[in-house]
């Protein structure tokens, strides 16, 4: 990926105000951000700083109060099939089996279901033997693999992940981080992820966007070009970067 890659997503001067009958809360203020093709971006910051709101805007599920969001050069005015979303609580439907959950996007879009493609996807995500089980019969890591498969089956160009591994143990979390990197690399996907986990942000984000709250603003964008390298997690640079990020976040909270 080079700096000359075109922007897949461009966020321009975006603000979001949630209004109720007697109050208004400014969740985001003047956000500028761009995501290039094949780039991975991680949003970090304290709870309530608007990371998820920004992610939902990129998904076309929330609208901006001010400013505009562009996808492939055109204003994003709703949901797009090129954008896949994976949520923290998996977003799987307990009444559907693994196969039915994965096929749901195709069913909704009335697209033919290619069983071979679904089977290959399940194989790639290492859940082929879970196909007829219900989500409640799966572990947290397996559920997140299904959620990933459900987003990937629609061939997105951009993958949005909202704290997808927050509820998982360290080893499962690291295995899934590697899996996400693999699928993004093999499909040349762009990725925007929200996380509270510093090592995860450093492992996955080529750009780490640090945010502060009330209202949510971007305070710094840290370039992290080594992210997504296979051996990065065990390197000195990795630990240096986690220290830099921690300092930045502690400064942001002070």
């Amino acid at each position, binding site marked *: 990926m080079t700096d000359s890659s075109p922007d897949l997503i461009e966020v321009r001067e975006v603000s979001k105000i949630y209004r109720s009958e007697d109050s208004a809360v400014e969740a985001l203020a003047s956000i500028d951000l761009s995501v290039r093709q094949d780039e991975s971006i991680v949003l970090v910051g304290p709870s309530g700083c608007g990371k998820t709101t920004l992610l*939902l805007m990129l*998904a076309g*599920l929330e609208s901006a109060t001010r400013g505009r969001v562009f996808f492939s050069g055109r204003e994003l005015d709703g*949901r797009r*099939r090129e*954008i*896949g*979303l994976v*949520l*923290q*609580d998996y*977003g*799987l*439907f*307990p*009444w*559907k089996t693994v196969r039915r959950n994965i096929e*749901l*996007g195709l069913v*909704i*879009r009335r697209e033919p279901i290619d069983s071979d493609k679904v089977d290959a996807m399940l194989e790639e995500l290492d859940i082929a033997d879970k196909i007829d089980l*219900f989500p*409640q*019969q799966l572990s947290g890591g397996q559920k997140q693999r299904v959620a990933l498969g*459900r*987003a990937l089956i*629609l061939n997105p160009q951009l993958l949005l992940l909202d704290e997808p591994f927050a509820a998982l143990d360290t080893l499962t979390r690291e295995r899934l981080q590697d899996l996400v990197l693999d699928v993004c690399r093999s499909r040349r996907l762009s990725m925007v992820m929200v996380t509270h986990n510093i090592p995860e942000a450093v492992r996955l984000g080529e750009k780490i966007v640090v945010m502060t709250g009330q209202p949510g603003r971007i305070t710094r964008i840290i370039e992290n070009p080594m992210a997504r390298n296979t051996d990065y997690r065990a390197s000195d640079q990795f630990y240096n970067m986690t220290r830099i990020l921690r300092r930045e976040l502690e400064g942001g909270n002070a």
Partner: protein
Amino acid sequence: MRKYFQYILTLAGLFVVWQIVSMIIGSYALPGPVTVLQKLADDARSFQYWRHIGTSVYRITAALAIAFVIAVPLGLFLGMSPRTDRLAKPLIYLSYPIPKIVLLPIVLLIFGLGDMGKIVMLAMILFFQLLITTRDAARGVSREARYSLFSLGGTKRHLFRHVVWPSCLPAVFTSLRIATGTVVAVLFFVESISTRYGMGFYILDAWGRADIPQIFAGMISLAALGVILYESFDIMERIFCRWNRI
């Protein structure tokens, strides 16, 4: 198998206690289970008894079906539409606590003394239980579930079909089970007026003749009817909500 064994055990225990109490009070005021079961067995050989049962079953299932068809879609709609729910709430909460049975004369006046009046009365009583349970279940659909569905390209129609309806089904079955208890209990009242058939009449007729064993035979019949309905809903829930039993 274990479930049937539990039923048999419970019945056996109940009959033992019943027999002891009957012996203390005296068999005229409270006939023992053997006498009552003998009476039930005798009546069950007559066409008349099954006509009573058939009439009651018809009224109950018709009332359940009418209440279900109106209350469940309305409850789902209100649950999915907070604005309409806010508008409808005062009317629902004002009319829910009114004992609908006091409206029986008016209902019979409007819908007639035949089956329709009785079925409408039963349906009115069931309506609110089904409506409120279904509405609350539909309101409980999480924002994450909505986001998840919409992110796949779903519309409100898809949300209803793939999320709201299946997630509410267990609550619908629960409300049907609760409603069954109510409908069997209320049946006695509505079948005490202008009818010569139904288990309510069967019991009331026994009252008039001071036929105590028949009163208890009627009670056992109603209890059996309730169990059959409960178990039918259980079977349906096992089929349609397989995921909820794992």
